[in-house]
C-alpha cells in the first residue's frame, strides 16, 4: 500500500520524533530500571500522540487507524516499550469509553486521557482468566447507589502509574461464562485498591505491570460503563482494535531487528569479508525483509478495514496480529543469529529486541487465540 501524502507526512513526524527523542540512554534506562518515564510521556502527549484515535470533540486529534498504526510502528522501531506509552490511551484504555461511554463519561474522561494528564489502565485479565476472559471471578455487587467490587486483576500494564482502571466484573453470577459481566471505570485512588509487586518481565521494561487487588471497593453507579451485564462484548471489540496496535508494534520490532542486522552484517568482518558478503547471511536478511514487508502490508490493510468497514475487520486484525507477531519473533531470532556471540550480550540492541519481540505473540491474544479467531470467522 502506498501512503497518501498526509499519512506519509505523519510517518515522517513519528519517525523524526522517535529517532531524536528515544535516545539510547533513555532506552537503556527503561530496560534496566523498569520505571515509567514521565518526561518522555508528557512530551509525547504534548504533540497529540496519546490522543490520535480519540475524536477532536474529546480532545484528541481524531485521526484514523492508519495514522495510529504508523505511529506505533515508528515508535516501536526505536523502542518497543515507548510504543506502549501512546497505545493504552488510544486502544485498551480509551477504547471502551469511546465504544460504550455516555456523552457525559466521554466528556469527563477522554480529554484528560488524550492530553496525557491522566493515565488509564485496562483490567480484564485475572489469575484464572487469561485468554479465557469469560472466567472472570471479580464481582461487583449493587449496594444502594454504588457497586462494591471484589477481586484481583493480574498483569495490569501501567497500573502503578494509572489514575483510572477499566475493570471487568461479574454483576450477574447467575449467567454463565462471558455473560453477566459489566465494565466499570474505577478511580485507582479509591479505598480498597492495592497493588501487587511490579512483575520482573523478560522485556518491555519501563511500562510497569502488576496485580490490582479490589477489596470492597465502592464505585458510584455513574461509573458503570456501557450496559449492565453486557460488558464482555466491549472487551472483545476493544481487544480487536487493540490487536491492531500490537501488530503494528510487532512490525516496528521486526523492522528494528532488520535494521540492526543489516548494519552489523555490513560492518562485521569474518574470514576477510563483511558478513553481508556471505550467501547464508543474505538469505536470512532477505527472509527478514520479506517478513517485515508482508507484516506491514497486513497491518496497513487491517487498519484500512478498521477505518472503512469496522464490523468486518476482525479477521484482518487477527491475521495481522498473528503474522506480525510471529514475524517479529522470527526476525529477532535471525538478527541475534547474525550478531553471533555479540547478539547475546546486552550491549547490542538485538539482545533487547529479542526479549521485546517475545511478548507480541502473547499479549492481547496469543497467536493460538488469533488462529482460533481467524478460523471461527472463516467457518462461521
Amino acid at each position, binding site marked *: 500500500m502506498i501512503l497518501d*501524502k*498526509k499519512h506519509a*507526512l*505523519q510517518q*515522517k*513526524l513519528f519517525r*523524526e*520524533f522517535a529517532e531524536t527523542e528515544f535516545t539510547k540512554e533513555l532506552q537503556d534506562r527503561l530496560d534496566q530500571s523498569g520505571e515509567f518515564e514521565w518526561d518522555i510521556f508528557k512530551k509525547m502527549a504534548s*504533540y*497529540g*500522540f496519546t*490522543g*490520535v484515535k480519540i475524536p477532536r470533540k474529546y480532545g484528541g*486529534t*481524531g*485521526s484514523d487507524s492508519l*495514522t495510529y498504526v504508523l505511529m506505533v510502528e515508528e515508535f516501536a522501531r526505536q523502542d518497543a516499550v515507548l510504543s506502549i506509552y501512546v497505545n493504552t490511551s488510544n486502544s485498551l484504555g480509551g477504547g471502551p469509553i469511546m465504544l460504550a461511554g455516555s456523552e457525559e463519561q466521554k466528556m469527563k474522561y477522554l480529554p484528560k486521557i488524550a492530553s496525557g494528564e491522566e493515565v488509564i489502565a485496562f483490567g480484564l485479565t485475572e489469575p484464572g482468566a487469561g485468554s479465557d476472559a469469560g472466567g472472570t471471578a471479580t464481582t461487583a455487587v449493587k449496594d444502594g447507589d454504588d457497586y462494591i467490587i471484589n477481586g484481583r486483576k493480574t498483569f495490569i500494564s501501567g497500573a502503578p502509574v494509572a489514575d483510572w482502571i477499566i475493570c471487568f466484573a461479574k454483576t450477574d453470577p447467575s449467567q454463565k461464562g462471558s455473560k453477566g459481566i459489566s465494565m466499570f471505570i474505577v478511580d485507582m485512588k479509591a479505598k480498597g485498591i492495592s497493588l501487587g509487586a511490579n512483575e520482573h518481565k523478560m522485556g518491555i521494561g519501563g511500562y510497569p505491570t502488576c496485580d490490582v487487588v479490589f477489596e470492597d471497593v465502592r464505585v458510584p453507579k455513574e461509573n458503570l460503563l456501557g450496559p449492565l451485564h453486557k460488558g464482555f462484548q466491549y472487551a472483545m471489540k476493544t481487544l480487536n482494535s487493540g490487536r491492531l496496535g500490537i501488530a503494528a508494534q510487532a512490525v516496528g520490532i521486526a523492522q528494528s531487528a532488520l535494521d540492526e542486522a543489516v548494519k552489523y552484517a555490513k560492518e562485521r568482518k569474518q574470514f576477510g569479508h563483511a558478513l553481508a558478503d556471505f550467501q547464508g547471511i543474505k538469505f536470512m536478511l532477505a527472509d527478514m525483509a520479506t517478513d517485515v514487508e508482508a507484516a506491514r502490508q497486513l497491518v496497513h490493510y487491517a487498519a484500512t478495514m478498521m477505518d472503512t468497514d469496522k464490523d468486518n475487520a476482525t479477521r484482518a486484525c487477527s491475521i495481522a496480529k498473528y503474522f506480525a507477531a510471529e514475524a517479529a519473533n522470527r526476525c529477532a531470532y535471525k538478527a541475534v543469529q547474525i550478531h553471533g556471540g555479540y547478539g547475546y550480550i546486552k550491549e547490542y540492541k538485538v539482545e533487547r529486541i529479542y526479549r521485546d519481540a517475545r511478548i507480541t505473540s502473547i499479549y492481547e491474544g496469543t497467536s493460538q487465540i488469533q488462529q482460533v479467531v481467524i478460523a471461527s470467522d472463516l467457518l462461521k
Partner: protein
Amino acid sequence: MKILVTVKQVPDTSGKVAVNEDGTLNRASMQTIINPDDLNAVEAALELRDKLGCKVVAFTMGPGPAESMLREIEAMGVDEAVLVSAREFGGSDTYATSQIIAAALDTYGIEDDDIIMAGRQAIDGDTAQVGPQIAEKLNLPQVTYAGDIEVNGKEITVKRMLEDGYMTIKLKTPCMITCIKELNEPRYMTVVGTEECFDMPLTVMDYPALKDHELIDASTIGLKGSPTNIYKSFTPPQKGAGMILDGSGKETTDKLIGILNEKHII
C-alpha cells in the same frame, strides 16, 4: 504585526552524498530536508507568535516539490506559506536569490511592525549571504547570528553571538534577524498539524506575479543575472589510508609512540 520566515529545502548533506562524474552533485540520490538553521527561525517565529498572537508566514524559493516542505512547516504551526517558483528564477546565486525573495516579501507586504526571520545559513552552500542581502535589498536593518530575541512593541533587542562573546543590539521593526541553532530547540509537527496542513493557505508566486516589481529584471535574476558563476567544481582528494596497528593493548600504544618518536612527530 506578522513574522515572515524565509526557509530553504536542501539536500541532506549529513548522509551519503553521491557526486556525478562531472563533479556536480547527484541530487536525485539525496534526500531533501528543511535547512536546519531555518527550523530555528521557524521556531523563533512560532515562539513569538505564541506569546504575541501574530501571524507567521513562511516563504521559500524553489521548484514545485518544495511545497511538501512548506506543508511540513504549516504542520508545525505556521499559518500560511508562499512558494516563489519559476523557471526564470533557476540558477540564481545569492545576490539574484535575495533580489527575488526581497521582491516576493515586498509584494506580499511588509508592515511597520513586521519581523523577517531566516536561518543563519543553508547547509548546501553554507554562504550565510541571502539573509543580509534580502535586508539590503529591502533597505532594512539586520541582526545576524541571533542567540536571543526580545520583542517589545516595535523595539527589538537581540543578542548577537560573536566567536568570543556577544553584542546586544537594539533596533526597530521592520527588520531582518538570522537565527542560529543555539537560539532554540525546534518543535516537531503536531498530529493535528499533519491532519490540517494540506488545507492551509499556500500561495505560489510565479514570474508573472513578480515581474513588475522594481527589483526584478532579466539582468539581475536567474543564472544570467547572477554576478558569480561556477568556474570549476570537483571533489576533494582522498587522503590515502595509513597504517592500522595490530591490537589495542599496551604493546600497540608503545609501538605507536615508537613510530612517532622515530619520525620526530613527537
